[in-house]
């Protein structure tokens, strides 16, 4: 069955430390990959996406994610986090073509402490 796994439900980290939020998906011929962020008491916002081309994609606020086909992963990383990065992060995958719905992981709550 098609699925998305976020291995960590919660990730506590100190400010200015690096962070990696893990995402794995079940293998498929073609996938589009997304990370969404949900700040406290707000809706989901698209953070970054991989459609094709370069396997490393970046967001405007310093996050990056790398598509690894052999490991069916799309981990999200940031070299130095800020307090304002505290949020819940969702990995999402579109399997096989562009029509139809995204499948979301269960989310990872990133908590950045001073």
């Amino acid at each position, binding site marked *: 069955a098609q699925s998305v796994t976020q291995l960590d439900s919660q990730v506590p980290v100190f400010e200015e430390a690096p962070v990696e939020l893990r995402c794995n998906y079940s293998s498929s011929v073609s996938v589009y990959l997304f990370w969404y962020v949900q700040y406290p008491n707000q809706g989901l*916002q698209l953070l970054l*996406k991989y459609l094709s081309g370069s396997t490393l994609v970046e967001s405007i606020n310093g996050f990056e994610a790398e598509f690894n086909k052999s490991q069916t992963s799309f981990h999200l990383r940031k070299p130095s986090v800020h307090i304002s990065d505290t949020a819940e992060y969702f990995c999402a995958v579109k399997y096989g073509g562009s*029509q139809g719905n995204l499948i979301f992981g269960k*989310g990872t709550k990133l908590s950045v402490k001073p």
Partner: protein
Amino acid sequence: GAGVSQSPSNKVTEKGKDVELRCDPISGHTALYWYRQSLGQGLEFLIYFQGNSAPDKSGLPSDRFSAERTGGSVSTLTIQRTQQEDSAVYLCASSLAEGSRYGYTFGSGTRLTVV
């Protein structure tokens, strides 16, 4: 409109009552999706509308759930005979036809509490 609008933002209802949740997508977006967000469960797909095609209802959890989309725009999600396990945040999103390629725009959701 500028964004996806959902109403009401909060709804408290008694067990057994019916509720209707409304979603007003971005103008021109032909695809509309409903998801349910429960604590610790991530986003659960419910239903997907694309243009005039028959909706994909594969995610609806029971026959108490139904949704319609009138005129290719506004959508209403109806839950009949609500149960406590229906308590969740119901999220609506819309996109262009190829939206799954470029991502969705989400509304702020309706928080449903069944007491």
